[in-house]
Structures are given as C-alpha cells and as structure tokens.
C-alpha cells in the first residue's frame, strides 16, 4: 500500500477524475471527460493489481470481474426511460460493495489482526457499513418503486410514529457503533457489528417506504451522495487516498444535485426524507364554485400551433411514461418547417431524476441548444404565442405563486400561464401525482387536450402534415 509507484499512479488517477468532471461543464467537451474518467479508472485498477507480492487470488478476481461485465453490459443497454431505475440500482451496488468490504475488514481484524482495532478504524468501519448497507437497501427500494415492481408499494406508505421509529433504528445502529469504538476487544464485538449491519439494512427500507414518485429526483440525488460517502469511509478504513478523493467527488456531486432538486421543490432535505408528501394531502377547501375545463379539438390545437411565431413545449413525467419524445420530435420538425421558433422549457424536477427530460429529448434528436432551463426561459414566457404542456403538472401550477394554502406554495414553476395561449395535454381529468388541482387548467387562455401524450401529439402531427399546403 505504501508502494511509491502505486501512490503516484493514484495521484494521476485523481487528477484525471477531476478533469473528467470538469469537462462535463459543456456538452461539447463531455466526451473528453468520459475518456478521462475511463483512463483514470484503468490506471487506478492496474496500479492496484500490479502489486505482485500482495495479491495471490487472481482466479477469484477474474471470475468476479467477468461476472461484473456480464451484468454491467446489459444494464448499460436499458431504454432511456429506465435510466432512473438503473441509476438507483447502481447506487445500490456501490453501497453493497462498501458494506461488504467494511464487513470483511472488520472480521479480518477481530479474527487475525487485532492490532488494527483502534478507535479510529472502528469508527470509520462503522460509518462505512451503516452508509453502505442503508444505501444498498434504500436504493433497491427506490429502483423497485421506479420500475413499478408489484411487491413494492408505489404510493407512499405511512404509519404512526414513523419518524420516531426510523430515527430510533438509526440511532441504535450508531449507539452500537459507539459501544464498539469504546470496547474494541469486547467478546460481543462481532455480534454488535452484525446487529449494526442488520439495523442499517432495515433503515434503508424504512427510509424509502414513505417516499413517492414526485420526490424521486431528490431521493436519487441523496442516495448518490450516500454512495459516495460510503466509498470515502472505505478509503479511511483501507488507508487509501484514491478512494477518498473519488468518493468525495461522487459525494459532492450527489450533494449539489440534492440541493438543486430541493430548491426546485422549495423544500429542505429533512422535509423530503422525513416530511410529508407522504401524508395524504389535506383536502383543499373547495370554494364552492364549479371549475370547468375548456377542451380543444386536435384540429383546433394544430391550427393554433400553426399560426404561432414562437412555441414553447413544457414536458413532464407524463411524456416519459407515454414515450412521447419521438412524436414530439416530429411535431418539432413540422413547426420548424413553418419557420416557427420552438423551445423546450425544462424544470429541474421534471421526470424522475435530475436531467431526465434532457436525455429523453436528446434521444429523440432534438438539438440541445433548444432545451432551455426554467430560470432562463421564465422571463421570456410572455413572448411565446403558445405554451404546449405535455405531461407536466405541478411544475406549471400557478398556485405555487399565489395560493398560500397550497402544498406547493413557493415552489419555482415554469410560468406557462404567462404565454398568450396554453394547450395542456393530460391523460385523465384527475389531479396529478401530488393530488393538487392545477389552476393553470382553469385559466381563460388554457385549452385542454385529453388523451395519452403520444397519441395526442401524434394527432397534432397528423393534422399539421395533412394540411401543410402552405
């Protein structure tokens, strides 16, 4: 481990990792960033493996690596709508690896190398396994919810004293960890350690059970940070600086994404994890007056689009569910052909993970220069003749601006209501995921297009291409 050659290789790998992330600041240099990351990984692994007197079980390692390839390759071929699940799954694998290495090290120490049972090492290994295993089960739960596996309830599950239970389980795990640190050579050390493992596994499940789909972007980001931090803790346990730096980069990435997601929902971390979208939204006091939608026909909407100079499309999770992105690209082409400016307005929490909409639209070959972030496009909203909302709901609800009683009050939204006309594509007449009524749909300038996003956009395209006599 103290081999100078290995350490120098780690220095180079760390620098390359930093450049990898630096080059992600622009889509033009991102590919270079990826190459830099791959090179760094190769250097790190090769330098570790090239310690001939240290490593003997090459057969074991080869088998594990081949198995990793066999599972990793298909996981990289999933459809892009499944990327949130895949990401959650890879956080689970990261957490599992950290947990298992921590477990292996701990038992190695108590069985064969008691000189390593120092307070610092025990504290580090306790943190490593708690973070590792809770990330493992938590991420598995999140992946299951995203994949809509039937065994795992989609809707948030809540029960009395939930937060007290959750915090109690975690506190118990940390309490046992402290007991271990204070009594490193105790006879019960092994049992206590296994109890910590068990409690952490349980805590991961409990943490995710009360969380619903709309909170997934934040939760995935937080799990990302935990996975990174568990790698950092592993670095402390193994006295390995490369693990600490790479883990810290991953952890800080997860942290920044979490902050962006929380801000975009106007909520705090604590509120997402222990809070409340879980609790059934309080029935809103209906003002008595019957609110009514105005529906529009596909022909009418197509005409409205055709006569516009500037169109903004606001996609949401409904677009991903309906796989409507390719139809939207056809619509984009039809409008572009008529010299209409088309922009896409992207809310940071639209979809199920950070950046989800961008990837889906890029997949459909829509140039990224037309994908505009919420903060950038909002001031221009009044200039758009038509705002076409496709499968987005809470992120365009003007109630967030003025209705103090609304659960989403204060959340930054894409101000679709400021465009001259709004067409909103919506699957059913029920309120969206959070159960909040959308004021936008009742506005004077809004016309609803009911139906599956893919079908509705397809109809619009048909109308536009059929009557393209200009």
């Amino acid at each position, binding site marked *: 481990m103290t081999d100078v050659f290995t350490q120098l290789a780690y220095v180079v790998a760390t620098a390359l990792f*930093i450049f*990898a*992330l630096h080059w*992600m600041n*622009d*889509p033009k240099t991102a590919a270079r960033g990826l190459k830099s*990351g791959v090179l*760094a*990984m190769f250097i790190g*692994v090769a330098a*570790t493996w090239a310690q001939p007197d240290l490593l*003997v*079980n090459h057969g*074991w*390692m080869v088998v*594990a*690596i081949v198995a*990793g390839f066999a599972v*990793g*390759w298909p*996981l*990289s071929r999933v459809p892009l709508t499944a*990327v949130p699940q895949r*990401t959650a799954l*890879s956080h689970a*694998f*990261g957490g*599992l*690896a950290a947990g*298992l*290495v921590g477990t292996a090290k701990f038992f*190695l120490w108590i069985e064969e190398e008691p*000189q390593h049972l120092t307070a*610092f090492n025990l504290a580090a290994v306790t943190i490593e396994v708690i973070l590792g295993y809770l990330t493992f089960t938590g991420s598995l739960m999140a992946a299951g919810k995203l994949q809509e596996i039937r065994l795992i309830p989609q809707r948030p599950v809540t029960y009395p004293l939930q937060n007290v239970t959750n915090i109690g389980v975690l506190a118990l795990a940390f309490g046992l960890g402290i007991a271990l640190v204070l009594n490193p050579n105790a006879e019960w050390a092994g049992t206590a350690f296994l109890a910590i493992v068990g409690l952490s596994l349980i805590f991961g499940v409990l943490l995710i059970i009360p969380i619903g789909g709309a909170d997934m972007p934040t939760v*995935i980001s937080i799990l990302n940070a935990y996975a*990174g931090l568990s*790698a*950092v803790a592993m*670095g402390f*346990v*193994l006295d*390995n600086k*490369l693990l600490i730096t*790479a*883990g*810290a*980069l*991953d952890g800080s*990435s997860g942290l*920044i*994404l979490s902050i962006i997601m929380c801000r975009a929902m106007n909520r705090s971390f604590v509120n997402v994890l222990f809070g409340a979208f879980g609790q059934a939204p309080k029935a809103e006091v209906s003002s008595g007056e019957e609110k009514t939608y105005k529906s529009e026909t596909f022909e009418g909407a197509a005409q409205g689009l055709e006569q516009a100079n500037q169109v903004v499309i606001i996609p949401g999770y409904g677009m991903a569910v309906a796989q409507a992105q390719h139809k939207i690209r056809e619509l984009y082409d039809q409008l572009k052909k008529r010299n209409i400016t088309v922009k896409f307005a*992207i809310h940071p929490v639209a979809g199920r993970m*950070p*950046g989800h909409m*961008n*990837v889906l639209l*890029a*997949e459909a*070959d829509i140039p990224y220069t037309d994908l505009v*972030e919420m903060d950038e496009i909002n001031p221009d909203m009044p200039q758009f003749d038509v705002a076409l909302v496709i499968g987005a709901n809470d992120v365009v609800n003007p109630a967030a601006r003025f209705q103090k009683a609304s659960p989403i009050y204060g959340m930054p939204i894409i101000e679709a209501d400021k465009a001259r006309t709004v067409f909103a594509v919506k699957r059913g007449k029920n309120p969206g995921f959070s159960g909040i009524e959308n004021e936008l749909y009742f506005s004077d300038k809004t016309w609803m297009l009911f139906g599956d996003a893919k079908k509705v956009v397809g109809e619009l395209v048909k109308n536009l291409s059929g009557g393209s006599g200009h």
Partner: protein
Amino acid sequence: MTESVDYVSLLFVFMLATLIGLGVIRRVSRLLHTPLMSLTNAISAIAVVGAIIVTGEDHPLHIRILGAIALFASMTNIVSGFLITNRMLKMFKREGDRS
C-alpha cells in the same frame, strides 16, 4: 501496514477533494445532469480497488467471498456506468449535427 495510519492527512485529502468536487460539479451543464450521475457512479466504483485488495490478499475463505461479491458489484458499476454515459452523451447534438 503496521505503523499507525496518518488520519489527519486522510481528513485533509477528504476536505480538499470535497471542496474541489463542489467547485467543479457546480459548473456542470444542467443538460448533462443525468450523464453526470452515471459518470460519478462509475467513478466512485473505484471502490473496486478496495475490493481487489480484500479479494486478492491471502485471507480466509469467508473474507474472500465477501471481497469477491464487492468486486463484482463495483465492476458492474464501472462497466454499466461508463457505457451508458457514453450512450447518453452521444445523443446530445447541436442543430447542425442532426442526421
């Protein structure tokens, strides 16, 4: 490995790496947040180094098994993380690049 670990310098490295990470990640294009996540996933799978050490050294069988599973899990992340990042990055095109 018998000499005690220099904890303070490890904490130093952790602090600096976190600050650099925060500075660099803050500038990442919002367009690329999904590929960023898959890339950092792959990067933190450098934990494979730890798994290699635990699996490869001459340890009892149960320790080796734990290490091998960890090695498998990290390797999965490296392979799928880098490959899917590559797949997604290729999709981001400018106006002129469309086929």
